[in-house]
């Protein structure tokens, strides 16, 4: 009986390893899925030629508005090459593992740019540390050795178990993707191949959303929009108001603790490498919200004095908080992204000094 059980375990582990842990399946993930988009971004960044050490990489979510092309076209004058692996819906845990994937020896980059929605890091209704979706973003990049730490970064036993199971049995996370693959296997393989070859160019050429909220007036006291541009439909108006005034739970320091943990992991990862870690506050809203007293204990402020940490002035991007530079409540538009890139790149260059020869 032992031989039979052993044979079962060995063959199963072999198949699991061959398909999922070898990276074979990662080559045919649906590129437009959460996991697939993350993988495409990481693969593109890994393949991007890095001719010198003067590389600046932006991580972050959808509000990280850096357009590398805008800055790189000036490169002969600046000496720095910008790139981004920002991905909508991600949080610091995802950024850490993405950085580890694109920079396995922690020596590729002169600087890493990390966005913050607000340097006060107040709690939101969602506990980001419990996001199961992080497992889906990262599944193709998590290794068996991550069993030591990744699952334990969740608080609940259920999430920990899901993460543990997902890392060992990756098929449980890929299940939906695999079933869709079975429906159109050849088309999927062709699509994945197409993205592998061409997507770097598309994403690099992305210019941002051209829409604008010009004319929007926000009444911060009454927590509403007093005037909307004519072109914004009613449903969109409601969404904008909901996003501008989400309401916050009593602050327990949960968000700060989460960010502090993962920022420290990123700092530790780059410790001694000479890579500078920049924090920047993204433009918060189409008009500047009223100032609130600063939280001196936020993660960013706690880390501000550490070597290789550069916290950009939190008001640096306030000039972009204008309705004509936003296309919805949270995201700057094409023009906003261009200005964002120019302002941030200039600050980064200034802080880094002249590029290394």
């Amino acid at each position, binding site marked *: *009986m032992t*031989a*039979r*059980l*052993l*044979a*079962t*375990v*060995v*063959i*199963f582990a*072999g*198949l*699991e390893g061959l398909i999922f842990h070898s990276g074979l399946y990662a080559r045919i993930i649906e590129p437009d899925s959460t996991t697939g988009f993350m993988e495409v971004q990481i693969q593109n960044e890994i393949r991007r030629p890095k001719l010198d050490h003067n590389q600046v990489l932006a991580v972050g979510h959808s509000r990280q508005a850096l357009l590398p092309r805008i800055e790189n076209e000036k490169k002969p004058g600046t000496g720095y090459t910008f790139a981004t692996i920002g991905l909508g819906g991600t949080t610091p845990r995802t950024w850490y593992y993405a950085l580890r994937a694109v920079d396995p020896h922690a020596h590729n980059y002169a600087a890493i740019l990390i966005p913050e929605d607000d340097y006060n890091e107040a709690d939101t209704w969602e506990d980001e540390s419990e996001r199961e979706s992080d497992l889906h973003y990262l599944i193709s990049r998590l290794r068996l050795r991550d069993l030591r730490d990744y699952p334990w970064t969740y608080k609940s036993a259920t999430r920990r178990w899901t993460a543990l199971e997902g890392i060992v*049995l990756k*098929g*449980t996370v*890929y*299940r*939906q993707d*695999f*079933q869709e693959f*079975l*429906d*159109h296997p050849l088309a999927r393989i062709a699509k994945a191949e197409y993205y592998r070859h061409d997507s770097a160019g598309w994403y690099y050429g992305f210019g941002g959303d051209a829409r604008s909220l010009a004319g929007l007036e926000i009444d911060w006291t009454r927590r509403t929009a007093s005037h909307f541009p004519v072109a914004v439909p009613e449903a969109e108006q409601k969404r904008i108001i909901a996003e501008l005034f989400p309401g916050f739970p009593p602050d327990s320091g949960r968000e700060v603790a989460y960010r502090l943990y993962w920022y420290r992991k990123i700092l530790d990862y780059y410790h001694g490498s000479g890579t500078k870690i920049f924090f920047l506050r993204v433009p918060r809203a189409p008009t500047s919200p009223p100032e609130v007293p600063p939280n001196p204990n936020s993660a960013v402020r706690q880390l501000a004095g550490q070597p290789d940490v550069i916290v950009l002035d939190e008001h640096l991007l306030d000039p972009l908080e204008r309705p004509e530079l936003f296309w919805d409540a949270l995201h700057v538009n094409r023009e906003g992204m261009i200005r964002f890139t120019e302002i941030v790149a200039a600050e980064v260059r200034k802080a880094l000094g002249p590029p290394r020869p």
Partner: protein
Amino acid sequence: MLFQTQQFFLFLGVVLILFYSTPLGWRKYVLLAASYYFYMSWIPVFILLLLALTAIDYTAARWIERAESPKHRKTALVISLSANLGLLGFFKYYNFFAENIANLLHRPSNSFAMSIILPLGISFHTFQSMSYVIDVYRKEQEPIRNPIDYALFISFFPQLVAGPIVRAREFFKDLYAWRKPSTAEASQGILLLLLGLAKKTIMADQFAQIANAYFQDAGKHPGMLSAWSGTIAFGIQIYFDFSGYTDMAIGMAKLLGFHFPVNFRRPYLASSITDFWHRWHMSLSRWLRDYLYIPLGGNRGGTLKTYRNLMLTMLLGGLWHGANWNFIVWGGYHGALLSIERMFRRGKPEDDRWTLLYPVQAAATFALAMIGWVFFRAATFHDSLYVLGQMFAGASGEPLAIPKWMAPLALITLVLAVLEEKKGWFERIAIGPAWAYGAVCALLLLSVELIGFGGPAVPFVYFQF
């Protein structure tokens, strides 16, 4: 605690470890404690009902043995049957009868209704319990002396919720002459567990999505093609659901050194409805035959009485499934088909299965079984008639959207079923070389991981009975 959940596998692992690390004499206590824990993981208070029925039937059987006169023996039997049927009737059928009486009296249908939760597995354990007491009454079974042994017979967790319905003599033979499972038995047990898990999560739960989409609002999917595809999806769901459960139950029992009767033998390969009932839910068919059909007279009282007995047995078999006119109609439909077949086959021997005509016969039987499933699945009789109307008189319409990979999967299972029927691949693999056994088990595990249903665990269909 559903069989296909990690929670259950953890439970099973703990039970197996405790069972085999305990001295032989104590093992039944481990199994009884595990069985009660399993039962109480749903609604703990219903354990009182299980204990009460256990006590009544245990005592009744002992009373029957000791009774000096036939009258007293009969009284004990009647008390036991009344308790079982009374509780089953109350929990399962009260609202059905209350609603029909209210309708007859032209009162609102919920006039006499009560809020009743059906205790888990009541239809199965009462039938098992009744068969024991009847066997004792018939002197075909010695009464069990040790109440713990009897309690374990009634509550044994692998088959407590949905069978197979085990006869007392089979169970106690294993309990009293327990021997460690051989390598072949343990191999079969594990393979059955995995096969059952695959049947449930890959086939049943995936096809359930299609069947549910259709039957929840059949009016949204008019046409013959969608009616047939929704019904066939349910036919696939219910077979793989119930036989998957049974495979797991039999597999677990094997691992614990017990041997349950086979409950399904590839029913969709049947060449007639009679053959279908020799292959579908065999432990219930056997129960109905031994405790209903034969006591009614079976086929001994002439042609008409035989048909009457067949119809009564199948109508009650239908009603056993649920308190709903649809189940009665379903039973009646099968009773009528069995009678018709008997009428045409009278005096003729059973056909050899593998003839040129077999594929046609099997396809026709499959279609007839599917028609019956309409009554089984539709929420109301009216809905059943609508679906049947669409199946036979609807416009062609569009088939339901079924993921492309599911059709080849159904075909593969058909090929495997035919191979099992002719070559017995399952038994061969269970005793075959370790690498072949390991490969099949590994493929089953990988299939469950990748193409099993990914949503929340879906309860087994027969858990509602």
